[in-house]
């Protein structure tokens, strides 16, 4: 039967798995994505989950989704809209309708589409697809719950445990749809449930039943093939999300600097996974303190920095507000500190599980006094590794707090990552006070205006630092007007000088284009994809994407001045555009701003770019 099937070859496909928060959709999506990656495809994923842990079953607020973008070649985003949706209940269908392409394939569990279920999801008719305007969708109706119960009738498991395997049935069916062998999934399951044999066997059975169901009964529907078309660099790869990559970047930096890694943190969505990840790695000597509040999170880190550790604190927007005063202490005491802000929707509690770039000005200027510090923004989930590494390098080598901006999309989104060879990364050299310097004072500086790090325990280097202004020469408390002016300018000059140690701004695309698209941080994948799409239609476009925001790369003005038109695209109301206008007086910038809590939509970006050209 399979031979007669219509196999359609695709360059890329977007699959969205969706169900109740307890349905195991995140796991299903992760397995499917790892499977694709193992077969040589490129991957990009993004979970879309609610703030509630377990909202009432079957309701709209409890829907949890996981989107996977699989490509024959490099994919830069998790995709705008889905080609395939797995909807485990009507609420999942309704919540995701807006993320579907018009002719998409929708797999539903008919056992959960009763009148009562439809009511729970606030449908007013018994025809959910028509009600949602999804008349053109190709629906694969499968009584998944019933089939799981049949397949596992002899398993000896209770009803609840049997129903829990629904997600694996759905995954088996999707594997069939994409002509993927399920053996790899079986080995992933074996890893996951190694200690629960009954659960393992049940999941394998459900998976197989799902695959066989597709194979045996749905011959009339097309299946898809995505061949790998781009040879990736040889090496070992893993699927990694931004929060894990950030944690690993810090570990790498600590190794390269010969320092102990210390994280002071307080749980906050969507940053908590950094704390979770680092708390696991005691075998590498990582110390994590789950502090009593956000302020104590950063304060313990500052204490650890003074004591000689590579110190970091992780948080999200509301936490960054609380940490402001302490970050300023690190500014004036000139201690190395990495502050990671996984941005989410604001203001206030805002949209905890959604993504935004609205903390930029807070990171740059949200402190009292003249308080310069480097601000770095990661550009993709895997790039969070490098961003955290270089944020640490700058913090340690320039004795300064550094704010690393990632966001909920980067933190939770994932992509394939080639495992780094740490030997290819530069050393990190702490600016320790050497034993042969005499008459040293704590605010003495090297040629880069960096003060020396005298770690407690070092004989003869006892000194006091603190939040009060210090005398440039003697390092004693000083309220002298001229001295304050000098110290303020010195702190600023130290940060400005870092521009000489960071990469220059690069332009992707047509250097001779009229229009330059400018972005920063987590929107890189979407902007790159959009610019590439515009270029494939024969039009010229270029992208300059900023990773270093404070200080700006040295060649920023030179690059921007080459273009007739510049459009700054960001997930806020124009914070970076405003910053550029301040730094480059007279510059004329167009803006594209979106604050829906969702990643950019490539199609919309393409339209915007075309309209601006």
């Amino acid at each position: 039967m399979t031979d007669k099937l219509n196999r359609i070859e695709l360059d890329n496909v977007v699959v969205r798995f969706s169900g109740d928060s307890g349905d195991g959709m995140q796991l299903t999506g992760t397995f499917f994505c790892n499977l694709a990656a193992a077969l040589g495809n490129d991957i990009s994923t993004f979970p879309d989950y609610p703030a509630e842990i377990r909202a009432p079953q079957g309701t709209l607020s409890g829907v949890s989704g996981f989107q996977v973008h699989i490509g024959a070649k490099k994919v830069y985003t998790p995709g705008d809209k889905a080609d395939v949706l797995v909807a485990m209940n009507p609420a999942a269908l309704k919540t995701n309708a807006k993320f579907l392409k018009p002719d998409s394939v929708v797999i539903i569990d008919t056992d959960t589409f009763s009148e009562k279920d439809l009511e729970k999801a606030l449908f007013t008719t018994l025809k959910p697809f028509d009600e949602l305007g999804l008349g053109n969708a190709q629906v694969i109706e499968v009584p998944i719950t019933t089939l799981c119960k049949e397949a596992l009738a002899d398993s000896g498991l209770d009803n609840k445990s049997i129903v829990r395997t629904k997600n694996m049935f759905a995954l088996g069916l999707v594997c069939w749809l994409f002509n993927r062998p399920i053996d790899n999934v079986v080995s992933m399951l074996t890893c996951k449930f190694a200690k629960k044999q009954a659960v393992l066997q049940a999941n394998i059975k459900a998976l197989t039943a799902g695959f066989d169901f597709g194979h045996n009964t749905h011959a009339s529907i097309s299946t898809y093939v995505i061949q790998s078309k781009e040879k990736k660099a040889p090496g070992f790869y893993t699927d990694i999300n931004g929060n894990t990559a950030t944690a690993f970047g810090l570990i790498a930096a600590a190794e390269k600097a010969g320092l102990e890694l210390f994280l002071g943190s307080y749980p906050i969505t969507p940053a908590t996974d950094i704390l979770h990840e680092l708390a696991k790695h005691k075998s590498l000597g990582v110390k994590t303190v789950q502090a009593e509040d956000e302020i104590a999170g950063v304060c313990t880190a500052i204490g650890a920095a003074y004591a000689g550790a590579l110190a970091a604190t992780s948080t999200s927007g509301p936490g960054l507000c609380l940490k402001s005063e302490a970050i300023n202490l690190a500014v004036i005491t000139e201690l190395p500190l990495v502050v990671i802000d996984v941005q989410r929707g604001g203001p206030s509690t805002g949209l905890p599980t959604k993504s935004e770039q609205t903390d930029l000005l807070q990171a740059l200027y949200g402190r009292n006094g003249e308080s310069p510090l480097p601000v770095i923004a990661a550009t993709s989930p895997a790039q969070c590794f490098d961003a955290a590494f270089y944020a640490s390098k700058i913090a340690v080598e320039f004795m300064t707090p550094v704010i690393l901006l990632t966001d909920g999309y980067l933190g939770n989104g994932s992509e394939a990552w080639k495992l780094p060879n740490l030997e290819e990364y530069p050393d990190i050299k702490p600016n320790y006070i050497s034993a042969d310097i005499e008459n040293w004072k704590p605010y003495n500086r090297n040629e880069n205006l960096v003060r020396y790090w005298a770690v407690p325990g070092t004989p003869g280097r006892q000194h006091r630092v603190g939040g009060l202004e210090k005398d440039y020469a003697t390092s004693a408390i000083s309220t002298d007007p001229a001295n304050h002016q000098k110290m303020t300018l010195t702190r600023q000059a130290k940060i400005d000088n870092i521009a000489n140690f960071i990469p220059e701004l690069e332009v992707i695309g047509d250097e001779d284009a009229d229009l330059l698209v400018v972005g920063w941080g987590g929107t890189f994948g979407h902007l790159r994809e959009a610019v590439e799409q515009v270029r494939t239609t024969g039009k010229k476009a270029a992208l300059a994407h900023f990773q270093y925001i404070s200080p700006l790369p040295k060649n920023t003005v030179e690059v921007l001045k080459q273009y007739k038109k510049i459009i700054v695209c960001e997930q806020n109301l124009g914070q970076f555009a405003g910053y550029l206008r301040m730094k480059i007086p007279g510059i004329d910038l167009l803006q594209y701003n979106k604050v829906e809590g969702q990643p950019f939509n490539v199609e919309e970006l393409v339209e915007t770019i075309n309209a601006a050209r």
Partner: protein
Amino acid sequence: MRTLADYKSDQYVRWCPGCGDHALLNSIQKAMAELGVAPENIAVVSGIGCSSRLPYYMNTYGMHTIHGRAAAIATGVKTANPKLSVWQISGDGDGLAIGGNHFIHTVRRNVDMNMILMNNRIYGLTKGQYSPTSERGFVSKSSPYGTVEDPFRPAELTFGARGTFFARLVDVDLANSAPIFEAAARHKGASVVEALTNCVIFNDGTHSLIATKEARAENAIYLEHGKAMIFGKEREKGLMQEGFGLKVVKIGENGVTEKDLLIHDAHAQDATLQLKLALLDGTSGFPIALGVIRDVAAPTYDESVTQQIEEVKAKQSVKNLSELLMTRDVWEIK
């Protein structure tokens, strides 16, 4: 042998003449010399307020930080380097108002540091507002008609946070202060020392009940572990238990002998009596308790952190990031 001078910095001490902080600084330095810890192995961390200027006057490592956060910052210092002797200095405003959360959690975690709480029951550096230890009705610039709130009693807060060490001293009592600081330093865990301090400018005489040697003889009781609870000018008075409470008795009256008096047990895990003693406030004939009131052993946070790391290291073979990465789900492209 180390001397007091080893711990003095070259900075001019800028507290008001007559301020109790001068005496405390001296007592702390004396204790450090007595303990013999090298100045380079000491970190003094303070918050904001008059008392928090103390690190500048110490020839040790020191941080004068931000308002209320000294305990959190000191926790970071000690956890990152447990070999350091960490002294955390704050006042009643810094430690119990803006920094109250860090105070209780540092005590709860039992981080091995000396938490010196200089209690003058007033905000001095901001020129005279009531503090969280000011008595109800206290008149100050910010409470011209008297406060309408009850104060914290630092001992109660410490005990409520499951503190393992609590001691009390009064600034002018030089002879007895250094030994108490030494005991605090020897205790492994968060040692809270309530140092009753006089503010000559804004709250002069706040501790007058025990401000002189004579007054202390009458109104204070020096508690020592294993010793009977005796006080009074002629050491003629003592404390006995009565029902759920304490009573003052005269030795020799009504057949009471020294043997009938309570013997202080600072090491008792059950803090009930220790708390009762700590809360005696010098009224109704009761004395104010000075000395080490509670001193019990418990695992410290910093040691436990280190120990857990050693245990995991012994069990797991992953020694660096490259090895760690290979333990993930990986696939190879050739």
